[in-house]
C-alpha cells in the first residue's frame, strides 16, 4: 500500500490533473463551527479566533482536505460601508444596498483593507490557519469577483439594469471593484492562503448569456486574475457554466466550482486535463440525506469526474448549509474513503 499523502500533496496532485492517493474532499463548512463551539453565528463568524479553532477541530474530526477561511461573503460589502444582517440559522445577508442609485457609483471608493477590522479579521484567520497546519493542508481564501459583488452593493435588479443600460457607470464600478479585489486576493495570499476562490455567480449562464459574459464578466475576470499572485478557482455558486467552460479557461483560472444542475460527466469531458472541477454535491438536499443516499451521491460524483485527477469533491455552492447534520458530513467522508481511492477502476 502506498503511503498516504498529505492533504496539500493530494490537492496539488489533483489540480495538476494527476491521480493522487484518493479524491480530495473539501468540506466547505462556514457555519458549522458555531454549532461545534456552541455559540451564536454572529459571534462565531466575526471572530478569527473562533473560526481557526473550529476549522482545525472539524478537520481533525472529519479528515477532509482543506481549511476554509471564509466567514461570510457579505464581509466585502461591509468593508464598502454596506449593512450586514446576521441570522441565527443561515449565512448573513447584505442589507440596504450601499449604492442606492447609479449616480453614486461616481463617488464610490474602495475600502482600505488596513482600516477595516472585518477584513483584518479574515487575514488573521488565514494567518492562524496557515501557522497551525504546518503547510500540510490547503488554506482556501475567498474573494467576490468585481463582476458579482455589485449584487450586494446595489441589489440584483439595480445591477442588471446598470449592466444593460449604463455602460459607463458599469465599467467605472468594475474598475473600483477590480482594484479592491486584486488587493484583497493578494493580501490573503500574503497572509498564507494557498489558493483563492473567485466567486462569480453572475458570470454563470444561469444569470447572463454567453455573449454578455464575453463582453463583461470574462473581461473583468481576465484583467483581475492576471494580477492575482497565486492560484485561483472560479466558483459559480450553483450557477451553470457548461456552455462557457472554454471561455472560463481563458481567464487564467485553475478550476471551476460546478453545479448539480449540470451533467458532471459532460463538464469533465469538456474540461479534462485543462481545468479542474470542484463540486457538485447538492447542499440543499443534504439535510435530508440518509447514509445510503449520501454514499450514492458521493460515489456518482467521483465516478463521473474523478478519473485522471482534476477533481475535488465538494458541495456545489461553496458553502454547506447550517442545517446539514454532522452525520451527513461524516457519511460524506466515509463515502470518499470508500469510493475515492485511486485507481478508481480497481
Amino acid at each position, binding site marked *: 500500500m502506498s503511503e498516504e499523502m498529505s492533504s496539500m500533496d493530494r490537492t496539488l496532485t489533483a489540480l495538476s490533473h494527476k491521480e493522487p492517493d484518493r479524491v480530495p474532499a473539501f468540506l466547505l463548512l462556514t457555519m458549522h463551527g458555531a454549532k461545534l463551539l456552541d455559540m451564536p453565528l454572529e459571534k462565531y463568524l466575526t471572530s478569527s479566533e473562533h473560526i481557526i479553532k473550529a476549522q482545525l477541530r472539524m478537520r481533525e474530526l472529519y479528515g477532509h482536505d482543506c481549511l476554509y477561511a471564509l466567514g461570510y461573503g457579505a464581509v466585502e460589502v461591509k468593508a464598502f460601508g454596506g449593512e450586514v444582517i446576521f441570522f441565527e440559522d443561515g449565512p448573513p445577508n447584505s442589507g440596504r444596498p450601499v449604492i442606492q442609485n447609479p449616480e453614486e457609483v461616481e463617488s464610490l471608493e474602495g475600502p482600505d483593507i488596513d482600516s477595516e477590522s472585518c477584513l483584518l479579521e479574515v487575514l488573521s484567520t488565514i494567518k492562524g490557519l496557515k501557522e497551525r497546519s504546518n503547510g500540510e493542508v490547503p488554506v482556501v481564501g475567498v474573494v467576490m469577483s468585481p463582476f458579482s459583488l455589485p449584487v450586494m452593493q446595489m441589489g440584483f435588479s439595480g445591477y442588471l439594469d446598470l449592466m444593460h443600460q449604463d455602460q459607463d457607470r458599469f465599467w467605472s464600478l468594475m474598475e473600483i471593484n477590480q482594484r479592491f479585489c486584486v488587493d484583497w486576493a493578494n493580501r490573503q495570499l500574503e497572509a498564507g492562503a494557498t489558493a483563492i476562490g473567485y466567486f462569480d455567480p453572475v458570470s454563470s449562464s444561469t444569470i447572463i448569456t454567453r455573449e454578455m459574459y464575453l463582453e463583461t464578466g470574462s473581461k473583468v475576470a481576465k484583467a483581475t486574475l492576471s494580477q492575482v499572485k497565486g492560484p485561483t478557482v472560479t466558483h459559480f455558486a450553483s450557477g451553470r457554466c457548461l456552455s462557457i467552460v472554454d471561455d472560463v479557461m481563458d481567464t487564467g483560472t485553475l478550476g471551476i466550482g460546478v453545479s448539480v444542475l449540470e451533467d458532471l460527466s459532460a463538464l469533465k469531458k469538456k474540461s479534462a486535463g485543462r481545468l479542474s472541477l470542484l463540486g457538485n454535491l447538492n447542499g*440543499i438536499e443534504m439535510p435530508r440525506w440518509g447514509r445510503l443516499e449520501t454514499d450514492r451521491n458521493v460515489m456518482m460524483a467521483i465516478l463521473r469526474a474523478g478519473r485522471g485527477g482534476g477533481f475535488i469533491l465538494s458541495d456545489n455552492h461553496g458553502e454547506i448549509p447550517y442545517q446539514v447534520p454532522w452525520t451527513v458530513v461524516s457519511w460524506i467522508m466515509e463515502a470518499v474513503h470508500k469510493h475515492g481511492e485511486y485507481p478508481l477502476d480497481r
Partner: protein
Amino acid sequence: MTEISAWMDRLEAALISIDEPSVNAIIDEVQASMTPLDCAENVISPVLRRIGVGWQEGSVSLSQVYLGSKMCERTLDRLLPAAHQNRRSQPKMAIAVLEDYHNLGQKIVWSVLRAGGYEVTNYERQDVPSLAALAKRDEVEVLLVSTLMYRSALRVKDLRKEMINGSISPILMVGGAPFIFDRELWRAVGANEVGDDASAALLIAKKYSEVSK
C-alpha cells in the same frame, strides 16, 4: 392561429434580444386585432412561459427573463392601466419575499403576472408574523412567496403555521432557488404549489382564476 404563432415567435425573439422598441411595435400590432387582455392571455403569457421554460432548461439567462418581463409589464401597463376594470377577474393574490434581502425573483414574478393581466398586491420583504397578518387583513386567496436562502425557504413552514393560527389558509405558492435544488422541499414546508421559474406563476394564477369563477 398561424398569425398568433408568428406574433409569439417575433415577440420571443425581441424579448430575448432585449429590444424594447420591437416589443412595443409587435404588441401594438397584436393590439389592432384583439383586446389588451386577450393579448396578455394569448400572446404575452405564453411567450413569457416559453422564456421561463428556456431558463429552466438553461437556454435563457435570468437577465433576459428579468428584462423581458419588465418590458412586457411596462407595455401592458400602457395598454391596460393598473386596476382597470378590464383587468382579469381573479382571486385576491399577493406576493412577498420572505425574510431575504435579495428580491429579484419576487420582482420578476410580479412583472410576469402583471404582464399577464393579473393584479397582484406586492408586500415586498416581510417576516413570518407580518406576512401572515397582511394576508389575513387583505383576505388573500393566493399567496406567492419567493425565497433565495435555504433558511428562508424553511420559514415557509412557520408561515403556514402562523396562518393556520390566524384561521386563514390561502393557496400558498413558493418559488426560488432552494425549491429548485430540492424537489421535495415545497411539500415539506406545507406549500400547495411550487414554481420552477417565474412564469409558472401564470399557470397557477390561471388555474385558481378558473376555480374562483
